[in-house]
């Protein structure tokens, strides 16, 4: 089933791609990138766009595993704040 989260996670990347992340104290290893996409922000809706509206959000849907069980996790990277979130989980 799908669960939606918005938990901040710590992510290690290699060449821009996530390879490991820590969620709720557990380390997950990324086995495979299933999908990767990017969206720009809706800068025209934002009240006080801080300077230029260049920030993009990068989404990674990955197969990852803390141990033997494999789950699908969606990680979101916000370029403006330089932060990662775990946005969705299928397990």
């Amino acid at each position, binding site marked *: 089933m799908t669960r939606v989260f918005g938990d901040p996670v710590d992510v290690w990347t290699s*060449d821009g791609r996530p390879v490991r992340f820590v969620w709720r104290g557990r380390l997950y290893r990324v086995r495979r990138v299933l999908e*990767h*996409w990017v969206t*720009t922000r809706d800068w025209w809706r934002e009240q006080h766009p801080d300077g230029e509206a*260049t920030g*993009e959000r990068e989404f990674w849907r990955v197969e990852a595993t803390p141990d033997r069980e494999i789950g699908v996790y969606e990680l979101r990277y916000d370029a403006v704040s330089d932060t990662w979130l775990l946005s969705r989980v299928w397990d």
Partner: protein
Amino acid sequence: MHLHVASAYSLRYGAAPPAALAARAADLGLETLALTDRDGLYGAVRHVRACGAAGIGAVVGADLNLGGGERVVVLAEGRAGWRSLCRLVTAAHAAGERGRPVATREMVGAHAEGLVVLLGPASDVGRAVAARRPDLASRLLARWRETAETVIEIVDHHDVGDGHRAARMLALARESGVPAVLANAVRYLEPADHPVAQVLDVTRRLVPLDRRHLDDRTGHAYLKSEAQMRRVAELACGPDEAEALLAETRRLSERCVLDPGRDLGMDAVHLPEVTGDPQARLAARCAEGMARRGLGGSRRARARLADELGVIARKGLAPYFLTVADAAALIRSRGIRCAIRGSGAGSLVNHLLGIGDLDPLRHDLVMERFLADSREGLPDIDLDVESARRLEAYEALFDRYGADGTACVSMMETYRARSAIRDVGNAVGLPPQEIDAIAKAFPQIRASQIGAALRDLPELRQSNLSRGRLDVLFRIAERLDGLPRHIAMHPCGVLLSNATLRDRVPVEQSALGFPMSQFDKDDAEAMGLLKLDVIGVRMQSAMAHAVAEVARTTGEEIDLEAVPRDDPDTFALIRTSRTLGCFQIESPGQRELIGRLQPWNLDDLVIDISLFRPGPVNSDMVSPFLDARAGIREPDYPHPDLEPALRESLGVVVFHEQVLRVLDVMTGCGLSTAEAARRSLNQERGQAAVGAWFRERARARGYDEPTVERVWRTLTAFGAFGFCKAHAASFALPTYQSAWLKRHHTAAFYAGVLTHDPGMYPKRVILDDARHFGVPILPLDVNRSAPDWHAEPVAEGGPTGIRVALNEVRGISDAEVDAIVGARPYASLTDFWRRARVSRPTAERLVLAGAFDGLYPGGPGGEPVPRRDLLCRVGALDRATARRSGPAVVEGQLPLGDEDGDGDPSGAGTGLAEPVPLGELPPMTPAEIVEAELDVLGMDVSRHVLGFYDGLLDALGIVRAAALPGRPAGSDVLVAGVKVATQTPAVRSGQRIIFATLDDSTGPVDLAFFESVQERCAATVFGSWLLVVRGRVRHAGARAVSITATACWDLNTLYEEWRRGGIDAVRAAMARRGPQVRPVGRRVVQPTGFAMSLYSDIGHAGPAVKRPPRAPLWHTSGGSSGPAPD
């Protein structure tokens, strides 16, 4: 490397200019760059030149619309590919409706030679892959392979699903054995540019910004480096395939690099075919010309001709001159007035071939400014023709040189402040009225100046626009600066070439139906094409109209070219500065200069026109020249050797030609080299190099240090702002001719000027000038007015008047004008209604403007039938017509006979169901009549609009224009009038000075608002139509007066105060303090030391002044008789 790149020449799609893309590609270390704009090659020549400058290989293609959102990219390989690409783009434009080109696969097949088709995500194959229809995708791919050389294009912008689709696309390529390349479908330079692309996406679709309307949702359509591209491919297809894709992409890029010379033909000129030996034919025609112009005996002329023919032979330009001579003769043979302008007037060959009418020897014009061994490319000949018949001239040229060998030149209209604000305003969803108000608040500046203007200009500071809320709007609008938004026909350029033109130039149809090159004038020149500028000049039309009016009314045939050019009466008129309506010398500044310079002959006019330029003004040449001319000061020559070159302008450098001569005298370099040096003076770098060269050569020839420095200072100050004497001379001729017409055929002259509106003033000012010259203004009359303004003798032997034209009626159509003139005369309003069949609004406007007053002058001793009664009757007629026969009037259903022919329009006996009784409505007051005239005709015909304010103006002690010359210099005055012109020209101090002209019924009042008063005056000056101004009198010359303004008010606002509280209230209103003084923006200092306000020489904020505003001008409360002089 990049094979799929849209520049800003993909209108409302791409966001980067070709030069920026090429420079960035070179910075990224790429070796090639393609430009594949959407449905056109508008940017191709720029791209090729920019790549050349950046040292990378240029690939050119087009991203073609195949309908239904389907697109493919075609790339050109070699010369054959370029030819196919041009013809394919032309075919796509011919197939679609104008502005919506559509290509087909068959069309691509028909031009397949040298083309490579890239099938990307938007192709039918790409869409089948996206829809997971591999079978269909294979079939479609096979079809393309039969059509042309085909390559699969992999694109991944990282949108949802992009990566998977790219992988499946690659798999298809591998299965079918079709090569695959990697592309990025580039739209802008860098990631931060994506908001611009997003605004363009919604602007193109005319929808507000919303994610679902965007093509670009990821911000990744930028020019990526090779490493970034590799990463894209690795993510989608894996590292091995990424390497293979890059290799294949590189291979295809290198194959498709075009050579500008060999493939595009940029290394040669492509002139129309000329039979026989062109040089011999040219020499023969020049010899004939020598005899015809009576120059055969002149040794000087023979030597000059030999010189010119020598240069022409060395440059192989004989076919060019024969072609232009042929074109000019062709235009004249249609009876169209045609004059040469610009440097071409300096060539004796042009004079002998009949291209130009001025004798360059007589006016001492040099040819090197036009034609010299040191000048590259084709010389430039410009022809001025009557503006009203310019298209006729075009048609003649198309007939003569064939549709295959001829095309008009296009030009790109680009985003400026107002248009950018409008488009971005729509994109962010502001209400239309609000967008309109914001856009109009800005002067006509570049979009990139929006922010600066909000800070700098008092008229904007006082609006509330700069208060945050619209921040995003302005920021994005600034970034649209200079992007092309619309392709239009260049107002004058025509390409004349041979049958290979369509192999070199893509062509589409202009709005007027002419074949139009997708290249602009610079591109055409780079492509080695002959561009003839056929410039529509309204003054030429105005003079043609005047000449025709003289012939029509008196039978006298005037040949303007044969009129003696030394008529003392004409120069006497010019010296009075009453030159409104004349070519070149009607602006306030020119009238002032004319007043000081006092021209006595054509040469004086040449100097006058040349002096009225930023250059001479900047280098302070005007005063020394005028002083020397007036004998106050001896002419001052930097060195006696320079006296021959500078004598005509009394020691002052005025002309380009004099720069050449001075350089030649001081360095001995010859005029051709001098011309090359003069052109280098324009740029800072060139100026330094020329300076070193000049000093060395001049010193070597024995000129002392102070002289050399002094001459050099003069030359640099003169800089790029001087004037080509040949150009001034070709302008002086129509200037003189127009003044001659004004002096000797005054009514016909005004008829011409009012019909073709050549000048800077609203027509009502010209009309008022006509009144001052004693020309009766005859009102609009359905039985007498012609489509255009006519001269009309008022009585046998009496003065000739001018009759208001039907075309002046607001909203009247050409068909209605023709119908009115065709069915004349009319016996009554009913008669008119039945036979002229104009629309009801037109009939009503005709009534209001008095066009039927002549039909109803009133019986013996009776009052004329009031216009209001006639207006009711139009309504009744309209309703009767509608009732009887529906929308179309059917002849025979209306009663026959002339029911109201006796001047009784009451409707009795006409069969109308609703007779309109006479005399129940009050007649229109003079004020209402003038208001109606302003509304319908845009000008006050019956009397001057200011007349209605006389009471107030007298109470205030306003000084009239006619009385101003009698006021002592420096005295404080109040003036008032209708604003007829505002200008912000570049001036010596670099201030932005607002020059405004008021018309107060006794003449023009010229005003100058310096920056110190603009904080409190600018908004009123730009925003109001009727003004009261306080200022100090300044005398300029014997008669000319101008006012240095210190304060100004809107006349209607004061009038309102007057009605409310009398003169005390007015005085109180005028005493209120305005805002504080702040400087108006920055200065730009040119390399020549010429300081200029950023806001000089631009269209100002607010509505145009050519027509009065469409609002009530003074307060006519319902049915009152207008302002009472209480």
